[in-house]
C-alpha cells in the first residue's frame, strides 16, 4: 500500500479481513462468490478455450497451406471450422470480456465490494464452464457441430444432418445463453445500483459504459438465438416444421432469427474492447479522454443501432431492393458512432503525451486493425459489392480484423495492463514489446492477404482449393504468418506466467491509471476497499485529495461497513447513498445448480424429456437450499 495505515485504521482492516475471508483450497474456489475469484476462473477457462480455438485455427490454416491438403478429412474440416467459430465467439471472447475483465474490474472501478448478485455471478460462471464442456464433449466424440457457426438450415436439419452433431449446437448454445443472460442482468444492476457515492452517471468510467451497453445488447439479443435454437431442436427432435419449406416453414426464418442475435453479437464482442481501450488510452496518454460525453453516447448508440442492421448478412438471399437498402443505410449510419470513438481515441493520443508501453502498443495495434476492419466493413454496406464478395475470403479478412484485430488486441493489452493489479507483479516490458510485434505482424500477414484472395474468388469454408486459380502463394504465406501469430500469443502467456513467479512487485498504481481500482492493493483484498471511496470526477485516481480523504475516513471508521458482507446501494442517476446492502457469503449452491442444469441439457440432447423434467425438479430443490443458506445471521 502506498499509504501507511495507522493502528486505528488497521483494526478496521483486520475486521474486514475476518468478515470477507473465504474458505481455502479447492472448496474455496468451488464455493466462492468473490467477483475477483470468479473473474479469475473465467479468465483461465476462457484462456483454455482460446487455446482450443487457436489450435483449430492452426489446423484450418495448415490444411489450406497448399491446394489439396490432407491434414483433415472434409468431415473433420467442417467440424473444426465450426468449432473454431463457436469457441472463439461463445466460449472465448464473451466470457473473456464480460466474464473475466468485467467481473474482475467493474465492481472495482465503481468502488463496489462485489457484483449485485454474487451467487448468481458464480452460477453464471459454472453454467459457462458446463456449457463449454458440453459442447466440447461433442468434439471429443467426433460429433461436433458441422454446419458452420451460423448453422444454416436446411443443412442443419435432420434430413441433411441426421447425426447428433447439430443437437450439441442447439442445446449447447441455449445452455450457454443462460450464463450470459444472468451475467448481463448482474452487470446492469451492479452498474445502476452499486456505484460508490458520488459516482453519478456522468462520472462513470467509459469502461463501465461499454459494459452497460454490452449487457443490454446481450439481454435483448440472446432470446432471439435461444428461440432460433429451440425451433431448430423442435424441428429436429419432435418433427416440427419451422424451417422446412416443403411443409410451409421457411429456412430464412432461421437466418433472420440468427442474425437478429448475430449482428448485435458483433458489437457485444467489440464494445468491451472499446471499454478496455478507453481505460488504457488516458492512462498512457496522461490525458483525459477527448469528448467524454460524446464517446459515452457513441458506445450506447453502437449497441442500440447494432439491432437494426442484421439483414446485411443476408444481402444475397434474394430480398427486394427496398428491404436491402434500408439495412445498407442503417449499416452505414452505424459507422458514425464508431468513427467518433475512433477519432476520440486518436486525438486523445495525439494531444496527450503518450507513453508507448506494451498495453498501449496493443491499443495502437487495435486502432490500426479497427480502421482496416471498419473500412472493409463500409465497403460491405455497398450492396452490389457485398453481393460480389459475400461468403468469400474478403469477408473472412474483414471480420478477423474486427474480431481478432480489434476485439482481441485490447484483451491482450488489457491482460498486460491489469496484470500488476491482479497479481501484484510487473510483467517484463522487453518481452512484452516483442510479443506485441509478433502478434501484430502475425495478424496483419495472416489476415490482410485474405482480402485479395476474396477478390480473386476464393470461397470461405472450403476444405481445399484447386491449384489453377492463383490462390496457393497467399494461402501458404497466411499459414506461415498464423504460426508467427501463435508464437506471439504464446510469448504473452509465458511472459505473464514467468512474471507471476519472478516479476518485481508492482505496487498499487504502476501506470498512474485514472480509475478507482488503482487505489486499492495489488491484488485487491476480498472486500476491494477498506473504506467506500468518494468520487467527484470521472478520473477519481487523479483526484489526489479525494484519495487522501478516504484514508482519513478509514482512521475514523467512516464508510467501512464492517458488520457483515456490506456494500452501499446508491441511486441510479446521481449515486446518492440509498441503503446499505447485505451481500450473501460464499455458497456451494451455484455449482450444484449448474450441475443440475447440465443434467437437464444432457437429457434434452439425448431426447429423454421426462428425465430432463426430473432434473428440473432437482434444481427447484437446490434453490430452496440456496435461499435457506442465503439468510444472514
Amino acid at each position, binding site marked *: 500500500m502506498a499509504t501507511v495505515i495507522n493502528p486505528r485504521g488497521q483494526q478496521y482492516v483486520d475486521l474486514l479481513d475476518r468478515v470477507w475471508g473465504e474458505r481455502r483450497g479447492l472448496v474455496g474456489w468451488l464455493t466462492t462468490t468473490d467477483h475477483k475469484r470468479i473473474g479469475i476462473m473465467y479468465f483461465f477457462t476462457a484462456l483454455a478455450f482460446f487455446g482450443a480455438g487457436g489450435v483449430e485455427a492452426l489446423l484450418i490454416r495448415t490444411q489450406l497451406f497448399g491446394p489439396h491438403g490432407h491434414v483433415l478429412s472434409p468431415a473433420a474440416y467442417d467440424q473444426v471450422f465450426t468449432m473454431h467459430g463457436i469457441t472463439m465467439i461463445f466460449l472465448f471472447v464473451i466470457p473473456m470480456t464480460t466474464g473475466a475483465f468485467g467481473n474482475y474490474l467493474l465492481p472495482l472501478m465503481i468502488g463496489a465490494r462485489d457484483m449485485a448478485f454474487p451467487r448468481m455471478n458464480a452460477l453464471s460462471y459454472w453454467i459457462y464452464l458446463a456449457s463449454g464442456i458440453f459442447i466440447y464433449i461433442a468434439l471429443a466424440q467426433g460429433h461436433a457441430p458441422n454446419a458452420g457457426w451460423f448453422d444454416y438450415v436446411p443443412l442443419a436439419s435432420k434430413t*441433411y444432418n441426421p447425426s447428433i452433431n447439430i443437437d450439441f449446437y442447439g442445446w449447447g448454445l441455449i445452455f450457454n445463453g443462460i450464463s450470459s443472460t444472468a451475467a448481463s442482468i448482474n452487470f446492469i444492476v451492479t452498474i445502476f445500483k452499486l456505484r460508490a457515492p458520488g459516482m453519478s452517471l456522468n462520472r462513470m468510467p467509459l469502461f463501465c459504459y461499454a459494459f452497460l451497453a454490452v449487457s443490454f445488447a446481450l439481454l435483448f439479443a440472446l432470446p432471439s438465438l435461444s428461440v432460433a435454437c429451440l425451433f431448430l431442436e423442435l424441428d429436429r427432435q419432435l418433427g416440427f416444421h419451422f424451417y422446412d419449406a416443403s411443409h410451409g416453414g421457411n429456412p430464412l426464418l432461421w437466418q433472420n432469427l440468427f442474425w437478429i442475435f448475430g449482428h448485435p453479437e458483433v458489437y457485444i464482442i467489440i464494445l468491451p474492447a472499446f471499454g478496455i481501450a478507453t481505460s488504457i488510452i488516458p492512462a498512457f496518454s496522461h490525458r483525459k479522454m477527448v469528448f467524454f460525453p460524446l464517446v459515452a453516447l457513441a458506445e450506447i448508440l453502437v449497441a442500440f443501432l447494432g439491432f437494426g442492421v442484421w439483414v446485411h448478412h443476408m444481402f444475397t438471399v434474394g430480398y427486394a431492393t427496398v428491404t436491402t*437498402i434500408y439495412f445498407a443505410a442503417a449499416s452505414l449510419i452505424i459507422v458514425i458512432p464508431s468513427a467518433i470513438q475512433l477519432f476520440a481515441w486518436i486525438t486523445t493520443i495525439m494531444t496527450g*503525451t503518450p507513453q508507448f508501453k506494451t498495453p498501449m502498443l496493443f491499443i495502437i495495434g487495435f486502432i490500426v486493425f479497427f480502421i482496416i476492419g471498419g473500412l472493409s466493413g463500409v465497403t460491405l454496406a455497398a450492396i452490389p459489392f457485398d453481393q460480389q464478395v459475400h461468403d468469400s475470403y474478403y469477408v473472412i479478412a474483414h471480420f478477423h480484423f474486427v474480431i481478432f484485430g480489434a476485439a482481441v488486441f485490447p484483451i491482450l493489452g488489457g491482460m498486460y495492463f491489469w496484470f500488476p493489479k491482479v497479481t501484484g507483479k510487473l510483467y517484463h516490458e522487453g518481452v512484452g514489446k516483442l510479443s506485441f510485434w509478433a502478434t501484430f505482424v502475425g495478424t496483419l500477414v495472416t489476415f490482410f492477404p485474405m482480402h485479395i484472395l476474396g477478390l480473386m474468388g476464393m470461397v470461405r469454408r472450403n476444405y481445399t482449393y484447386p491449384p489453377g486459380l492463383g490462390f496457393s502463394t497467399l494461402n501458404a504465406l497466411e499459414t506461415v504468418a498464423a504460426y508467427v501469430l501463435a508464437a506471439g500469443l504464446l510469448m504473452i502467456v509465458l511472459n505473464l506466467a514467468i512474471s507471476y513467479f519472478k516479476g518485481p512487485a508492482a505496487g498499487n498504481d504502476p501506470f498512474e491509471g485514472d480509475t478507482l481500482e488503482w487505489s486499492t492493493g495489488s491484488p485487491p483484498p476480498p472486500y476491494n476497499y477498506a473504506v467506500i471511496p468518494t468520487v467527484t470526477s470521472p478520473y477519481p485516481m487523479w483526484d489526489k485529495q479525494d484519495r487522501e480523504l478516504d484514508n482519513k475516513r478509514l482512521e475514523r471508521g467512516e464508510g467501512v461497513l464492517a458488520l457483515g458482507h456490506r456494500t452501499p446501494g446508491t441511486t441510479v442517476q446521481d449515486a446518492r447513498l440509498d441503503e446499505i446492502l447485505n451481500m450473501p457469503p460464499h455458497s456451494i449452491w451455484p455449482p450444484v445448480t449448474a450441475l443440475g442444469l447440465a443434467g437437464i441439457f444432457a437429457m434434452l440432447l439425448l431426447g429423454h424429456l421426462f428425465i430432463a423434467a426430473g432434473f428440473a425438479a432437482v434444481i427447484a430443490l437446490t434453490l430452496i437450499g440456496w435461499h435457506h443458506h442465503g439468510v444472514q445471521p
Partner: protein
Amino acid sequence: MVKPPLHRPRRSSKVRYGAAAIVVGGALLLSGCSKQSIISNASPQAHGITVLWWWMLGVAALVFLGAVVLLVIGYVTRRRPGLPFLGQREIAAQGLVLVFGIGIPLGVLVALFGVSDIYLIRQTAAPAPRTTALTIHVIGHQWWWEVRYDGGHPVTANEIHIPVRTRVNLVATTADVIHSFWVPQLNRKIDMIPGQRNRILLYADRTGKYRGQCSQFCGLQHANMGMFVIAQPQSAFRAWLAHTSRRSSSPTTPQARAGKQLFLTSQCASCHFIAGTPAQGTIGPDLTHVASRSTLAAATIPNTPRELADWIHNPQAIKPGVRMPDLGLSWRQVDRIVAYLEELK
C-alpha cells in the same frame, strides 16, 4: 468523394488504373490472372462493381493514411511538456473528433450510398420479367449444378452455355440445401433457397469460359462444387442448344454396346438420365451428352477417359461424401461403361 463514372463502364479504365496506383503491392496480382476474380471482369455489371471497388479502396486508403498520420503526430510529440493529466486544447481536439468522426464520414457514406445502393444496385439487378430472350434454370444439388433451358428440354450439368452479348435471365433454385450461384467475372451472386425462386442477370461482353463456384456452405463437398459459364457467339450457341436437345446416339463399338447394357442393368440408371434410353434417374446429373462436357463431378476433375474411369471406379476417393456410391465394378466393367459414355457427345 466517390464520383460515379459507372454509367460509361467500358471507358473508365483510366479511372481504374489511376486508383490502382494507390494500391499496395499484392493487389496488382488481382487483375487478369485468375479465372474466378472479380477484377478480371467480363460484363458491364461486374465491371461496375470493380470500378466501385477501386474507388472504395482509394478513399479507404486516404482515410487510413489520415488516421495513421494523426497517430504519428502523437508519437512525434510524445515528449512535449506541460500536458500531463490535463485537458488543454479541448476545443481543438473536440473539433477534430467532430470533423473526422462525423463530418468526413457523413460525406463519404452518403456518396457511397448513392453510388452503390441507389445507382449500381439497379445495374446489377435481375432483369425485369419477360425482358430477356433467354431464361436458364440452374438448380443446386449437393454437390453439382443442374442446368435446364427454357421449355425444359435441353438439360446439362455444371456447364452453362450462353450466347455472348445477350441478356440472360437465370433462375436459381435448389433441390436440397441452400447453395449460392456465383460467377465473379460476370455478376454478383445469388443464393438458392428452398421454397424460393431467385433470379439474376447473366451477361458476358466477350466469348470465354468463366469459372463459378457455390459460395454458401452446403456440406461435405462444398469445396468441389464448381461450374463454368461458357459464352459463345450466337450461332455456336444455337448449334449447341440444338445438339443438346437431341437424344443420345446409339453406341457404335461392341465395347460401348456392352457398356450401355451394363449401365442400364447396374445401379447407374437408377440415378442418371440418358435421353432415348430407359435410364430415367433424376438424382445425379443428366448424362445424355456427358462426353461434350469439359469436367466431371462439378469441375472437380477434367473429363478424360482416364479420369472418368477413376471416377466410376471409386468416386468416394476423388470426392469424399459425394452422393454417388462406390459400385464395386471391376476395371473391365468400368472400361466398358467409359467406352459407352465417351460416345455420348
